[in-house]
């Protein structure tokens, strides 16, 4: 086992333990355990960053191609955003109970996938790749943060629910809802930037800024879904549980767009994640 893979398994260990501690801390209302769970999650970033750095130096490129690298980068950005948000506002740490399982599942999937070295080919050798991928990762991290906050909101929103006590460390419901919407706003903007940078790159690389390829189409669908969310919030004045459910349901669609579509569809983007062609027909 190489140093990089060892570090990645250690990372997964940290995140897994952190998830368990979050569950225990929140369910048994042990604030100390929840706080420790957050520190364990934050500590997991150290080996993950080191593993990414080791691979980057060895291959000469960042985590941009192949399921392993893509899922690893999505997890990394999600964790960085979660840790940064919870350091800025310590009361947000308990949303780790919803965010950490997403990270563990993503990273677990990455660790079970093919970790072969995938070189950057001529068609991928562009600074647009870096810009495009960074925006995708940042947008996804924002959607996961909104997802975590929305789960906490829904759990606490029933009167007399045990979750009111279990998640009492979180800010009040209005603030949680506001933060969730703000993360969606940020994600919406970043996802838009991902689409625009991808379009410019596609025009440069293939001569068409938009070709209705499945992944392009799905990225537009995800953007439209969050546009509907924002319209519901700002023009239809939706609030509360139904808006939170909207955010909860939307995040997996964004995830499917990022790692599911290139795997199951016949797409020119399949190469970046090592997908199979023509599975649907």
């Amino acid at each position: 086992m190489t140093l990089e893979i060892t570090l990645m398994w250690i990372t997964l260990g940290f995140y897994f333990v952190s998830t368990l501690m979050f569950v225990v801390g929140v369910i048994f209302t042990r604030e100390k355990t929840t706080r420790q769970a957050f520190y364990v999650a934050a500590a997991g970033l150290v080996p993950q960053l080191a593993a990414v750095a080791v691979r980057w130096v060895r291959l000469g490129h960042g985590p941009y191609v192949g399921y392993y690298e893509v899922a690893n980068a999505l997890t990394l950005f999600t964790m960085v955003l979660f840790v940064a948000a919870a350091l800025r506002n310590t009361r947000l740490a308990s949303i780790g109970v919803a965010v950490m399982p997403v990270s563990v599942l993503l990273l677990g999937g990455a660790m079970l996938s093919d970790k072969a070295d995938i070189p950057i080919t001529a068609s991928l050798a562009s600074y647009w790749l870096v810009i495009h991928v960074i925006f995708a990762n940042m947008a996804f991290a924002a959607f996961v943060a909104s997802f975590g906050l929305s789960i906490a909101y829904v759990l606490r929103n029933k009167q007399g629910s045990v979750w009111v006590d279990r998640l009492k460390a979180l800010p009040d419901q209005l603030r949680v809802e506001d933060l969730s919407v703000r993360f969606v706003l940020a994600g919406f903007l970043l996802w838009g930037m991902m689409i625009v940078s991808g379009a410019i790159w596609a025009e440069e690389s293939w001569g068409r800024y938009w070709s209705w390829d499945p992944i392009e189409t799905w990225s537009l669908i995800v953007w439209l879904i969050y546009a509907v969310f924002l319209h519901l919030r700002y023009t239809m004045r939706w609030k509360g549980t139904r808006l939170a459910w909207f955010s909860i349901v939307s995040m997996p669609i964004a995830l499917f767009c990022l790692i599911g579509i290139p795997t199951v569809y016949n797409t020119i983007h399949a190469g970046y994640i090592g997908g199979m062609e023509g599975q649907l027909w």
Partner: protein
Amino acid sequence: MKFLRRTLGSPVLALVLIILVGAWSMLATIVPQGHADAPEVESWVAANGVLGSITSAVGLHEAFGAPPFIAVSIVLMLSTAVCSWDRTRVAVKRGRALRAGARITPEDLARTTDLAVPIDPALSDADALARTTSRLEAIGIKVRTEGGVIRAVSPWWSVWGSPVFHWALVLLALAAFSGVLFRAEGNMVIPVGESKPDVPESYLVVETGRLHSWDGVERSIRVEDFDPAMKKGDLELGAVPTVSVLDGDGEVIATEDVYPNNKLHAGSLSINAPTCGLTATIALETAGGDSLPQVVQLVAFSQEASGGTEPLQPLVASNNAGQVLLRLMATVPLDPRGDGTYGEWIPKDPAAHIVLEDGAGTILFDGIVRTGESAPLNGGGSVELLDVGWYAHLALVDDPSIPVVYAAMVLALLGLTMSLASRQQLIAAAVKTDDDGRSLAVMMRLWRNVPTDRAEIEQVLTEALGRLPEGENA
């Protein structure tokens, strides 16, 4: 007209249209896309019975050019335009209010008070203003005090994010639509060292938008040079042609090594070089003494074809009456690799398999000829292979709408960023004295991205300026 405008401006309609576009797009990714006679479409429709006939009937297999999708997109664009107009009117109004707010005086405030907070008599005017400042700043509102007025007024442009974003989406839709009308896109194959005029006849395949005009196009494309295996550092770029665009006088406008992520731009024209192939240059002399000193057969690589190549298109010589005199087809047998495939490269010992027939279909020659060799034709005459070289297969796109599309995208993102990041607020306060005594006259407009709300502001000001607890002084 009013009804139409109201309907198009309805947020519910906008939502329904967005959902329809999203749902249609989702369905489009589930069924195969292509013309009705494309093999995947045909087999999918046949295998899915009633569902297949429905998807065919509604045009779901050519989803993004289908009438239902175009109709919904046009209505969505109109709805966005009406919505943008409404948002513009709001922004104008708010912008005016913000500009006025930046100049507001205590007298203006006394006349247009949204909220009057009684001030404890123990507090002087200066104390009251100081307390207001510190309490507002404590809840995240940064204020400035000038001429006895406390102000937290956003700049006038802060309210323009949303209209700019929505107008940019309208512009984007218009630019994309006009792109379809003005665009010309096609493939051209040019042997190395040769040039072709940019006219429809030079293209292998070309799609031209209804409003694209070839009249003003006076340029030609030349392939100057070719490197079949270019490397840049450790990066293998593959086959890289050096392509030039020449103006009507033959002057070079632009020249570039064309490879992935490095295409040639010349005005609205852009050129990629997705593939390449071989050329077989042949000289012919017929039994009647007619000669064709240099005929170039383009040969495409094909792992399925015998010998690894196939002619891109047969060459035909006709007389003035259009009668076919000769048909020539040539391939270049490639060197086989150990794994049963062919190396896509000029063979070590270049040769061409030439088939020549007359207009009646009689075979005049069918055999292999090596470079520099000539062979006799049945019935007299000869065929000679002059050279085996390369051609570049170029993908040309002439789309004047692209800069507008990019500008619209950038504008949309700028508008969205402004709309998300810039605070839209107008808070002004000054002490006023009237028959009811002294109070803090407050004007409040909290539109967007404000970290607090009216109730909280009212509460903190009431607490700050109300009767002081015993023992506390100003």
